[in-house]
């Protein structure tokens, strides 16, 4: 645990401090938690990837309905399998931190809610979003009729240019009307 191999070098630490919204203590804590997720033999190398299943065992993400989408959005892996390096993990924590700007948070929230990765929130995305929000069990799901009506109402309110989808600017416009978003969109280790 205290070997030099698992410590962060100072220049990397200061670079991470400059490029993210995290403080030094938060970065060190993130490093500790990340190395715990790595298998024992991988702990010495710096750019190891943690597979998706291991990331999802973290208590902060375990019961979050958006956990898979979060990992996919922040993952930089070629295979698009949702695995995270330490830098991806820091990106995640930075976007969800206290001092991140509203713009960063709304940008990543948009990407998380864009389930089919096409750059806009269309009906399918909104339907999946509402299903995630209302839970997995059958008795909390909305009926198809209610869902259709709800999504039409949402589109009517938020789709300004009336093209049937919510793009990033429209999403950010909606988010700016809610003062609670910044405090809800937070994950603290």
């Amino acid at each position: 645990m205290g070997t030099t191999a698992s410590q962060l070098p100072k220049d990397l630490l200061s670079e991470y401090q400059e490029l993210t919204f995290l403080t030094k203590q938060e970065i060190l804590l993130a490093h500790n938690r990340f190395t715990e997720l790595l298998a024992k033999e991988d702990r010495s190398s710096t750019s190891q990837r943690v597979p998706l299943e291991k990331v999802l065992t973290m208590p902060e993400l375990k019961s979050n309905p958006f956990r898979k989408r979060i990992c996919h959005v922040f993952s930089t892996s070629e295979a698009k399998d949702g695995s995270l390096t330490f830098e991806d993990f820091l990106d995640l924590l930075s976007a969800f931190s206290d001092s991140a700007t509203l713009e960063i948070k709304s940008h990543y929230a948009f990407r998380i809610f864009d389930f089919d990765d096409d750059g806009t929130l269309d009906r399918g995305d909104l339907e999946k979003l509402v299903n995630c929000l209302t839970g997995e069990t059958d008795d909390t799901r909305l009926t198809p009729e209610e869902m259709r009506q709800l999504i039409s109402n949402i589109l009517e309110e938020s789709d300004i240019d009336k093209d049937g989808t919510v793009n990033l600017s429209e999403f950010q416009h909606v988010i700016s009307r809610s003062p609670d978003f910044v405090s809800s969109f937070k994950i603290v280790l």
Partner: protein
Amino acid sequence: MDRRVSFDSNPHHMEAGPESPWDEGVAHRSFSPLIEDSGPRPIGHGEALEMADLAVEEEEEEEEEEQEEEEEGGRDNPAFLARQSDDPGSSATRETNPLVRQRWSAATQRVLCSMPSRTMGRAQDAIISRYCSRSEQLRLRRQTQTSIRDSDRSARPSIRGYRMEVEPEEEENKKEQLVTNLQSLSAADRMRMLRAMPVSMAEKSELRKLACNLKSGLPLSHREVSCHSRLKYCTASALSAWSSCLSFLQSLQLWQVALKRVSGRFGTGVLSYFLFLKTLLFFNALLFVITGFFLVIPQAANPPRHEAGNASFTGLELFTGGGYFTHTVMFYGYYTNSITNTSYGGGAATRHSTYNITLAYFFTIGIAFFITCIILVYSMSKSFGRSFRIYKSQGNLAVKVFCVWDFKVIKVSSVKLQSENICTQLKDNQQKASSRTVSSLQWEARMLALPVMVSAINLLLPSFFNIVAWMEEYDSPSVRIHVAIFRNLMLKVNVLGVLCYHWLGRIAVDGQSLSLECWESFVGQELYRFLLMDFIFMVLDTLIGEFLWKLFSQRVLRRKRKPVFDIARNVLELIYGQTLAWLGVLFMPLLPAVQIIKLLLLFYMKKASLMVNCQVARKPWRASQMSTLFITLLCFPSFLGAAVSVTYTMWTLKPSSKCGPFRGLQSMFLSGKHWIEQLQESNPSLGWLTWVHISLVENPIFLFSVAGIFLIVTYFYTQVVDGQRKIISLLQEQIENEGQDKKFLICRLQEAHERKHTVSPRRRQLRSREDSGTD
């Protein structure tokens, strides 16, 4: 007949006919390069999905729009005119109308996918080009600000604020441009821009390396900063030092683990109560530090000579605040109106320091209140600014759906509960078109009766209000919450108002008749008792009341759920306690310390009770708006009332003649006034202060003019806000029009593509007709 023919060969049937400016040929020619150009990009799975979805969307939008058009009467646009199917015979128009098409062609699909509004949120190069132009804007803005004097290249007013148009280039050039822009920004700006870019860490790191490496090669003259920007740099570094100091204080992480557990299980609403408690702790700590350094320590170091400390310490003093404590540094009466002379150092190097306790008392209280006022107003305005929206657009449903999920909640049962709550909310939304004789211990103990009664009232009446609210029917839950807060608030304001009248209006004026030697100490003791009783009742309520209520509701009422943590009521209790503390600091300088201890104990007690007795609320709590409300309540009735009472006391009431630092004066305020007046003689270098005081503070004309200017500025700002509202509605209309244009263009593109592909079967048809004709 004619129409039908043109209908077949021209699927987009134009009612307007040949007079329309949107000539078919023109449109066709302008789109063909686009169709040729759209390169061989493989359509991924996501894009294939979009094809079907888009088609379905377009169809539904079409139906909505056609209904809209029938209502509005259409706009001056041939596409709209074309859609109006006022030809009753052609019921077939709907199916063959191209805007209701089932399948977009591949080319159209590619164009759709690569539109800037769709790639902005997703593709790396689009983000880079967006930030490129943004950094360009920032660079220009900074240049025109700092280099006004060396205006050789870019400080021309015509460029200020204009976006320099970058020619459409490829990804690499955009990146280089971004790097160049980043270099020319200051280090702080560069860091802020890099942090705010939503790209991966590897990209940011690369950009940073490029920007820093190239920057170090610049000649020295570029790095010279003008005097103006050096001043800005100094202020910026001072501000950053102050913010790092604040962040250090935050990183002390008082109660960090506890707060995380509370928010993990109960969410942001309940967390706001504990954060509010932390804020109050900060206020009291500040007050304690100020009064401690400037009042308590100097007076404690120089105890007055002739104080008769006859009473001995018995346990009751902790509750009544009297007895032994009366003649200690805790209360007003102990302080002398002397100028203490301390000499330290020995021999030839003795130095005397004088400390005027009277002046110190007056100015300390004044400055402490002033600083608290500034901090409160600042945090209130910041909090208000965050939750104020200029344009109140109709409906909150989209906001609710996008912002409702609280990512801090991690416990599984709480997550499930949150989901249930959201489901209930969404379903509900759908169903709707909410006062002696001899000072003895016995007499002191009897003094406890009033605080006990007031605390009991404070405890029982809110429960009574809850029962009444349960019987009443409200339109919406938020109305219920606001009514409950209002009732509690009125109760507390009335209680405090009556108490203030009782103390300041009767006891202070008539102190002799109650044979009180020192009415200020007495009022201080009363406040101490009230604060303490309030705390004891809160403890009893938390330990016993909530626990009993939980047992009652589970056994007798047979409810499955535990009671809910009543955030509003608890926050009002905190505000009430803080008002008492502010009222009492004039009479008991150590009251903030008592309040600090009380808040610390309260935190742990409430947290323990929360974990054991309560469960997550059904209705979600709008945390930030409520925080604004609480800070506003803290500022307006609470702090303002306390400040007004203290000012009234200092200005009008006659201090006791036998005790305290203001003995002998007509009012406390006069001490400051006398000092200013005799400043002229004693210290001529500070004579300007006297002049300032006479001509500004005591001059009504100056105050009137300041108030007038303030009102004018406020009016100006309200006009600006009105103008902005109008502009916002105009812009929304414009965006909608642009959306229509976009749809129109996509449809024409589609037709153009189709015509290219269907021309061969049609030619075959024509040729076959010709053949049949000639035969």
